[in-house]
């Protein structure tokens, strides 16, 4: 069965690129525009991996990670931050919140695929 990946980003072009890249690799992609939307979209579906931007309106990436980790079925789900912040504190905050890893924008599609494969095996 194809694995479900939740892609959360307020930039439509990033979402499009992520979806395009991952679908080509045979993954199913669920898109969400911000943290709040993401929490709504995961109702009733099983997500195997989460890719999230950090800077978003409504609920930002850090908040989303915290919210997800509080849901019992998401305690061990890999969560990857997509971030332009090269600030270590943002990355640190994400890791503290429970993120599994990060990808620094700009990234190449191959980098995204390799990280997803590393986490989903």
């Amino acid at each position, binding site marked *: 069965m194809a694995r479900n990946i939740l892609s959360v980003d*307020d*930039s*439509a*072009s*990033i979402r*499009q*690129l992520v979806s*395009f890249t991952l679908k080509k690799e045979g993954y199913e992609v669920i898109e969400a525009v911000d943290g709040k939307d993401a929490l709504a979209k995961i109702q009733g579906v099983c997500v195997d991996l989460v890719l999230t931007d950090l*800077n*978003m*309106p409504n609920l930002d990436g850090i908040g989303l990670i915290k919210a997800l980790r509080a849901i019992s079925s998401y*305690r*061990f*789900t*890999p*969560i990857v931050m997509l971030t*332009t912040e*090269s*600030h270590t504190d943002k990355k640190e905050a994400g*890791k503290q919140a*429970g*993120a*599994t*890893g*990060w990808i*620094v*924008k*700009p*990234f*190449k599609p191959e*980098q995204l695929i390799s990280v997803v*494969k*590393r*986490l*989903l*095996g």
Partner: protein
Amino acid sequence: MDENRQAYREEVHELLGDLEDALIELEQTPDERDLIDRVFRAMHTIKGSGAMFGFEDIAAFTHTIETVYDLIREGILGVTPELISLTLASCDQIKAMVEEPQGGESADTSKAQEITDAFKAMIPAEDENPAMVPAPADDLKKEIQDNTAQITYRIRFRPHTDIFANGTNPIPLLNELKYLGDAHVICHLNNLPELTDMDPEACYANWDIILTTNHDVNAIRDVFIFVEDLSDIDITKIDEGSEIDQDDYKRIGEILFERGDIKLNDLELMLNRQKRFGEILIESGKVNRSVVQSALAEQEHVRNLRKKRMVQDTTTNIRVPSHKLDAMVNLVGEMVTMQARLTQIAHQKNDPDLILVSEEVERLTAELRDNAMGIRMLPIGTTFAKFKRMVRDLSTELGKEVDFITQGEETELDKTVIEKLGDPLVHIIRNSIDHGIELPQKRKAAGKPPQGTIELRAEHSGANVLISVHDDGAGLDTDAIFKKAVEKGLASPDASLTDKEIHEFILAPGFSTAKNVSSVSGRGVGMDVVTSSIESFGGSVEIRSVRGNGTTITLKLPLTLAIIDGLLVTLGDDLYVIPLGSVVECVELTKKERKRAHGRHVTKVRDDLVPYIYLREVFSLGSPKPAIEQIVITQINERRIGFVVDKVIGEYQTVIKNLGKLFKNIDGVSGATIMGDGTVALILDITRLIVHAEDEDCRIA
């Protein structure tokens, strides 16, 4: 990517519209936090996505603006009308930049620089952080060092117990290491607590990985990048790969000492004893068994690696007369027999010492046998070479253009099989050129290239080797073959047969001879000869053909002839071996069932009627038959035929012995083998037995 760039352009226009609205509102209410956030986010997105889609200039340009708005968010800078107009001007600049075709000159570099400088002027000096400039995408490319050097690393991966908490699964990481090269993974579970004390959400395992790879150490670090601070990772180079090291690899004690698993004085103490060092360590309780195993694995990994390098440097061949090899294989065969006898005696006497010895001998014999068989293996390429000349000569003679391709020359087969293969292959290739490949004009008319292709390939498939001859010629003429089959009385005129069934007629004995083949446009020259010779050494023939598109004939051959896997059965007091390759299943035959069939030799196996041969009748055995007999069902060329025997004993690997000249004319027995207790078992020749039974039927009819 162009599609994505277009999506980015559209997004930027949308964001800029939103940005302008926000800026104008912000001018009215300079302290409105939401508005500042909105501006910051829009700039952030334009920057981040810009770099993703190749608009590096926009990314660089917006970077400074983003920095300024970040400072405003933090309250360090305030919103001023100058800032608003400058930001609005930069919106226009971004709009101009995003419309630029890729690689074109930036809209107006001087203007962009002007705006950037103005923004920069607002930033307090210490906040100008050069590290924040986004790295150009090209720098992210992983550099792979020298591709040729195979370096071996020892990686000690000690995840902290809470590693699962951030969603990490260590297994994909280990798998990823395996992709990097030849990896040897050893798992240590010595930290595993009692079940009652175990926290199912904690990780207690740790791993040692010995990895030989041509990637550099950064590629290995990269695998662990997400877990760096949740685990202890230690990567050590243990073999450089390039120089040939004459010395043996480090001793186990040295490895453990170097890894810090034992102390030097412990090491010295232990060295004074005389047992195997690893054993002593475990017994003494200084280290855990898995730790020693891990060190042993490292030792072995590197030793093998170095041995392989040595072998590559020093491989030579020795030429040995083949009769010497045959003699050796014969001796090994006898040894296998004697060994079986030894095992049997050992078990009868039930002497533990004897059993121990016999098991060891069994292991050695098996290894010796495999080695001896391996020596007889030759690459098939030697036979392939001679066909090239044949194809060239024959095609010139017939005025055809043929391109001959061979593949899998390195496939190894028993010497005797290769010798017997020559003639059948000559037949098949001859047929392909003669009847398969059309004349150049005819090929052109059919829309094919004037030059035909014949492909000869060999490949391994389990315990068999497949040799196929493929041509892109006319294919088999099913109509003509069917007509011929009806003529010969092999099929009734109104039978509806599949193409495959019709093709198989050409394999039937006596289907066609060289004399009448000229009247048929299809093929058939001596195909029955091919079939019988291939089947004589346990192989089978398969035909696939598409009219107009060519024909493929595949020969399935056993790897070796000297040893067969057989099914040992009994008939009366005698033992027989049925080659296992053709056995499909065994079913029971009761008296009742035999009666129900009214004397006809057929039985129902899962809704299929399977004819059987009553071996007691064939061999004229008089002894009383058991109440329940067994049918061994065999399958040869898609046909299922049963053989009725008294009892099935089981699988038996056996060395084939020739029966000698005196028994040359015996039909249905292909050889004999000597059992462990010295009795002789005959190896049944299934194909001949079937032919024999069919002849018998004809005579009765």
